[in-house]
């Protein structure tokens, strides 16, 4: 099931994607937001309601919002994919690289991603986004997927020259609307194996990234367990799980994103996250 948050007729709503439209759940449930519906363990109920209802609104007529409009936390994992056949030195890093990112550094599906006024080095990173469904702390790795409500697509857009101005990457990872999240989330039951997803990024019809999640160094259950040692994970929290090779910085010369281009990230069975690039 695909769950979406959106704006229509000046109103914020959420619902179930069905037949190119949306069954509006915000008028059928008590929960004011998708985050609260998930936290209220109402996914099964939404599925039943949607099965017996027609779409209320077409996807063509809505403004997309982040699937979770106000996540408390977004953690990103850096350098989490190895290249095919790559053998990591000394078995690779022992721990993942983790950093937070605020929601205002992302754009929703369909809206412009901004190339900053102060840099030309806008890069893309297509990633699987994990959305937490129930609160947990000290989650054992073997049960970690029980805490996942579903998956979305994240363009963990990066302004490369601002990554290394200090010792920390926050400035390059927090430019206003330099990434994207969406278009919706797919519930966990639709993905049998999160290690068997293919991330394909195209920029104006040219394929730039095509990598499988089997190349992830730190797998999703490990990452959830690891972060939950540090802090409570709450319903609606997101984890951007890292990006396969093929970012703009890796070409020679780097093919940075430019205003006028469109970037699309496809991960089946989630869908495609697509955004135009605009000058700030």
């Amino acid at each position, binding site marked *: 099931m695909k769950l979406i948050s959106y704006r229509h007729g000046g109103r914020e709503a959420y619902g179930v994607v069905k037949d190119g439209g949306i069954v509006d759940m915000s008028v059928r449930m008590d929960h004011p937001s998708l985050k609260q519906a998930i936290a209220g363990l109402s996914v099964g109920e939404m599925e039943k309601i949607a099965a017996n209802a027609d779409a209320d609104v077409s996807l063509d007529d809505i403004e997309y919002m982040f699937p979770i409009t106000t996540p*408390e*936390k977004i*953690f990103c994992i*850096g350098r989490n994919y190895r290249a095919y056949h790559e053998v990591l030195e000394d078995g690779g*890093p*022992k*721990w*993942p*690289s*983790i*950093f*937070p*990112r*605020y929601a*205002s*550094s992302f754009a929703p599906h369909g809206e412009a991603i901004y190339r*900053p*006024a*102060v840099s030309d080095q806008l890069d893309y990173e297509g990633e699987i986004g994990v959305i937490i469904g129930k609160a947990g*702390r*000290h989650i054992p790795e073997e049960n970690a997927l029980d805490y996942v409500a579903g998956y979305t697509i994240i363009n963990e857009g990066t*302004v490369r020259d*601002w990554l290394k*101005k*200090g*010792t*920390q*990457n*926050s*400035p390059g990872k*927090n*430019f*206003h609307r330099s990434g994207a999240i969406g278009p919706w989330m797919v519930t966990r039951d639709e993905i049998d194996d999160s290690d068997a997803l293919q991330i394909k990024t195209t920029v104006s019809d040219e394929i730039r990234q095509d990598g499988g999640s089997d190349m992830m160094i730190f797998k999703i259950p490990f990452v959830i367990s690891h972060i939950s*040692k*540090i*802090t*409570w994970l709450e319903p609606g929290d997101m984890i951007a799980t890292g990006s396969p090779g093929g970012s703009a910085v890796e070409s020679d010369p780097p093919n940075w994103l430019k205003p006028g281009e469109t970037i699309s990230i496809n991960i089946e069975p989630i869908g495609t996250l697509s955004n135009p690039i605009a000058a700030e």
Partner: protein
Amino acid sequence: MKLASFAVAGRNGFGVVTDDGVIGLTGRLSGRQQTLRELLEANAIDEARSAIEGVAPDYPLDKVELLLPIPDPEKIYCVGQNYREHILEMGFEIPTSPSIFSRYIRTFVPHEGHMVMPSHSEEFDYEGEMTVVIGRPTRHVSTADALDYVAGYTVCNDGSIRDWQRTGPQVAPGKNWERSGMLGPWITTADEAGDPANMNLTTHVNGELRQQSNTRDLVFPAAYLISYISTFITLMPGDMITTGSPAGVAVGFNPPKWLKPGDKVEVEIENVGTLAADVVAPE
């Protein structure tokens, strides 16, 4: 004026801490704001000042439980290695750009709260810091104009789990442990706090002086940090920038003076306030 968020008789409120007690602002503002963040969003500091004129306190200070001054900020940015003397002492070069990372609000406890000793580390450290609270939205602001967007200042312990800071190239894992830092006790408005580039700071642990400096030693002062961060993101009312910590942290001693359950940490910023909390064992 000292703006605080608090709980009293099971209800959350916000208001002004005066010498005689706390005046609640709930119901006293024309916009019916319910939180301190909403007050800042409405740019209503001046209105709050008028609203409490001649009003008797509603509660003695010791009858309210102070909460995090802004319990629900959109963003908190922290700055590492920003005190000149401390950087030189550690043998580092003076940086040309600030090191900026973020931490979530739930990693902080309020004044007189209980920090929780991390369950997976012994290396629990303190960092007394002066913190800027943004009052109005701003993007691409110059250093010269930056302080116009400040609502006030508060006090922070940017508590750090040192071994988890080194688990990867980013310090975030060591800076985001649940209830590992402190923030408060209130926001002292900019007019009353004085020059953010000249504030004395001290940190005591169990009464022992550990950190003593002045914000004039900051490599990147508050105005510069606001301008710099606004290059990449819109700073919003209630957002906070905590400006870094001077020499004297636990890891700097030989052997390190790590925090442990039962310890009490007290950070004072002159003209802003004194923030105190203790450490308890993990649940």
